[in-house]
């Protein structure tokens, strides 16, 4: 019974495929896998915008949107209709083709990464044996489209915004990938499905999630911080700065293209969150062995929503970083720590199981964390700026 509910979507797909002639089956199968994902995640985006606006409002002791529909839940509909009916303005000097392609590429890239995300048991569009690699490769296509948008707009604000975004995204791509390396080391596979399966076991009632190891929790925190920066969210929202570069790289976009950028940004956030779940939080696996009767996709989306709420919480709390703080943090703290974390994961692997390896690896990571944070702090000397003029 529980097995049927858990596999309901897989069973429905196979039942539908039974009516399709054999030759068309691969194509129909792909469409049947892709369409629900393409529908589900934009819906999640709509829900998230409401959640975010209401959550942020509550954190600032406001109501948030509460006029459209019941408690404002139709707000995304209103926003969507508004952006669809707005005029699509393209600057006269813009590179028309690239200007048009940038949001399209961004949305395509954002959707492509969902191909390797296991949404539930046996629920993955493509179980690639290099799934993690695919994810990061496609993920960096977003940077390309950001630069396309910034360059083709032919506006100094969008160009500066794009440069900032690129600098930030490339800097944080490094710790993002290195933080996930520990998981690849532990699982011994680049396939996301295998990584989740490795974590789906239980000792007593406790799950085998990688987050419950010293290198796992460090990797998870680094991954989440880097994911925040990767998706241009507060406190790393330097590419958008009302006071200095207005909306950043998509300043020259209006109407639905703007909405597409917005959508892609959120889809990217969901994708990296989904990857964090896959790598560290056991994917679709239940948190306790006695809760395995709840369908796997419920667990996956529950974890996803939890992470989204955490993102909103952080956005409601932290002020923005300065560009130099951002870069210092990426290169002087996150990158060394993630490298040390890899060493820690190696030590963990070769030491016998028990409290000793817990102690050793935790000590290594904590010590390096403290030292690195000290280094970040000491670096705060300010001096009078001297201007040198061209003679």
């Amino acid at each position, binding site marked *: 019974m529980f097995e049927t509910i858990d596999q309901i979507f897989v069973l429905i797909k196979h039942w539908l495929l039974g009516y399709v002639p054999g030759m068309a089956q691969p194509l129909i199968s792909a469409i049947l896998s892709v369409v629900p994902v393409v529908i589900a995640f934009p819906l999640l985006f709509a829900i998230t915008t409401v959640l975010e606006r209401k*959550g942020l409002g*509550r*954190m*600032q*002791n*406001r*109501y948030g949107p509460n006029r459209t529909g019941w408690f404002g839940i139709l707000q995304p509909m209103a926003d969507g209709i508004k952006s669809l009916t707005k005029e699509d303005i393209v600057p006269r000097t813009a590179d028309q083709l690239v200007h048009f392609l940038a949001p399209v590429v961004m949305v395509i890239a954002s959707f492509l990464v969902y191909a390797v995300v296991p949404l539930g048991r046996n629920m993955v569009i493509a179980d690639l044996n290099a799934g993690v690699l695919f994810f990061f490769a496609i993920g960096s296509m977003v940077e390309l489209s950001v630069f396309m948008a910034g360059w083709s707009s032919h506006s100094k604000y969008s160009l500066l915004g794009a440069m900032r975004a690129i600098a930030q995204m490339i800097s944080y791509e490094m710790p993002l990938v290195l933080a996930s390396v520990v998981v690849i080391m532990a699982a011994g596979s680049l396939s996301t499905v295998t990584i989740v399966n490795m974590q789906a076991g239980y000792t007593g009632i406790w799950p085998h999630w990688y987050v419950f190891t010293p290198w796992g929790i460090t990797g998870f925190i680094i991954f989440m911080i880097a994911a925040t920066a990767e998706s241009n969210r507060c406190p790393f929202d330097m590419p958008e700065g009302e006071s200095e570069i207005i909306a950043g790289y998509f300043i020259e976009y209006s109407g639905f293209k703007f909405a597409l950028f917005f959508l892609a940004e959120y889809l990217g956030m969901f994708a990296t969150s989904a990857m964090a779940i896959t790598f560290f939080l056991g994917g679709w696996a239940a948190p306790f062995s006695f809760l395995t009767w709840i369908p796997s996709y419920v667990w996956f989306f529950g974890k996803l929503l939890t992470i989204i709420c955490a993102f909103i*919480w*952080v956005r*409601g*709390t*932290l002020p923005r970083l300065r560009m130099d703080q951002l870069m210092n943090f990426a290169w002087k*703290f996150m990158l060394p720590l993630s490298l040390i974390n890899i060493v820690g994961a190696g030590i963990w692997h070769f030491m016998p199981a028990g409290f000793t390896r817990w102690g050793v690896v935790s000590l290594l990571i904590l010590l390096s*964390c*403290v030292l690195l*944070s000290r280094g*970040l702090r000491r670096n705060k000397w300010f001096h009078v700026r001297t201007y040198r003029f061209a003679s």
Partner: protein
Amino acid sequence: MLGEGIVKGLAETARNFFGSYVNKERLTTVQFPEERLPQIEATRDFPFLVYDGTDPEPGLRCVACQICEKECPPKCIYIVKSADKKPDATGKAQFYPAQFDIDISVCMSCQICVEVCPFDAIKMDVEFEMSSEDRFGGLLLDKYKLAKSNEYYNKIHPTEAGAVDAALAEERAKAKLAAEAKAKKDAEVAAAKAAAAAAPPPPDATPALAAETPAPAVATASGETK
């Protein structure tokens, strides 16, 4: 330790988040169309015309002197003076505005028209929900739209209206006294003339002199009011 302040901040926002669901006092937002804050007495935005009594047509205090029209900095007032005179609220024959338009899309709410009006005929309103689908006609208020009763004025600005009413009452009482005195004097003069016409030898000048004394008061009162 790195991240201590972040944890503190997260705790603070979490407290706000849950607190706003428990404690209504945290939410200071007023849900506007349904609930409104009471207006403070000094609220003012656009001018309106005050009329005495119940009917705006005769009761309008405005006598179309056109001072406000001349003083208005953005020139949003347009007045056409009447050709004839009609009795105002006190019964005195006055000019009246045949047309009095204020374009509130031009008005900058500076209140200069109110300051310069010698008749307390134009005052500032508190009505602000004046949006219209017709941006030309809908925002051009004619004298029927502008006319509002003195009771309304007393309701929106009680203190100011009270002072204006007291001053007006005093002035009108004075004017009435003066008018009565003038009427009396006129009557006496007429009587004296009649008497003089009837009896050629003049009796004496005392009644005429006695009637002469309130005459300066008449002059000042009439100069002040109308």
